[in-house]
């Protein structure tokens, strides 16, 4: 009898201890204006962001989805054909990137600004 109770108690515990939070990104992270959107450049903003977030799966020899993001030329190509913004904004028809997460609103805004200004090499 006791043996039969153990799994039940285990399940009960699993239900009881799963503490739920009700957070959302807007309230949890109050943006304090530390997002630089006035001076977005390829070398200072975009390339470090892409190196950090994208290059490990999009470099020569490991071009997932046949997308390369390891140089200005290849990044520019994806910026111009719309896939860069389509993917990071998780738009329909594009593979949502990065897989399983979303870039921060700040990074998204910086990418938007850079692409909309013609994706310059600056």
């Amino acid at each position, binding site marked *: 009898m006791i043996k039969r109770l153990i*799994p039940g108690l285990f399940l*009960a515990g699993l239900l009881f201890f799963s503490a739920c939070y009700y957070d*959302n990104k*807007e309230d949890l992270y109050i943006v304090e204006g530390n997002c630089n959107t006035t001076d977005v450049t390829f070398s200072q903003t975009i390339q470090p962001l892409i190196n950090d977030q994208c290059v490990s799966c999009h470099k020569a020899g490991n071009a997932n989805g046949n997308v390369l993001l390891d140089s200005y030329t290849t990044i520019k190509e994806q910026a111009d054909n719309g896939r860069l913004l389509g993917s990071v904004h998780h738009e329909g028809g594009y593979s*949502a990137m990065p897989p399983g997460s979303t870039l921060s609103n700040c990074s998204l805004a910086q990418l938007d600004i850079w692409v909309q200004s013609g994706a310059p090499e600056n």
Partner: protein
Amino acid sequence: MSAMKKNILRPATWPLFLFSLLLPLIFGAHVLSAQDYVSRTFRGTRVINGHSLETVHTGELEFLISHRFGYINRGAYEFFGLDQASMRLGFEYGVNDRLMLGVGRSTYGKHYDAFAKFRLLRQRTDGKIPLSITLFTSAAINTLKPTDPNFPIYLQSRLAYTWQLLIGGKVNDRLSLQLMPTIVHYNLVETAEDHNDLLSAGAAIRFRFTKNVAILAEYYYVLPGQRTQELHDAFAIGFDINTGSHVFQLQITNATGMIEKAFIGETTGDWAKGDIRLGFNIARTFKLKGRRY
């Protein structure tokens, strides 16, 4: 701490808590022998993406490999999506005829998940109990590195939980049906308008047309108005092929993830646009207790 206090008082958690108190009693119930219950309503522990009402037998360990390729609409250059792949590896164990525990790890979101599945009610061959009900609970943790140093990710923000009732049964020897009312709780959502508790209802059908081959379809409907992003309901259709100690499932679906929080609440693929993935699940069963094969 204040967040926890606040949340324990939320009405949504009360039915679960009360229900959890009843669980030990259910385990004390009289047990009939195996042949009194309807078996193989579904052949595997998964319908396609989601769980079926089946659990693995006592003392059996199942090794489950699930695979989803890229979108078919990417064309011949990417070999119709086969250049990309996302997978989940899982181990699941039957503690007894009613309880099954499992763990898994997914490529998507680098999620680790753990779940418990418990058969509350089992359909009986004599018709006294006309359907089976299985309770499914799981927790999944996203282990991706933070994408922005300005926004640290708190441990609790990485967690999501699923509670699901898998209600169904064998209509006849060939046809099985299942309904899946589901709550997925996300500790962190995008905006204040997004619901942390995502309500959805799933339905699944299985039709067996030869001894070892069956066709399956599975659809999860997410109740409208709960998400601000554009998401799509997960739909999948596939075959399962039984090869003795393996179950091989071949399917097409618009979902990327293979755990509830991912395919119910994070599916961005649109069937109408051809965002369809080819995928397969392979389950291999190892008998750890009792007579070996």
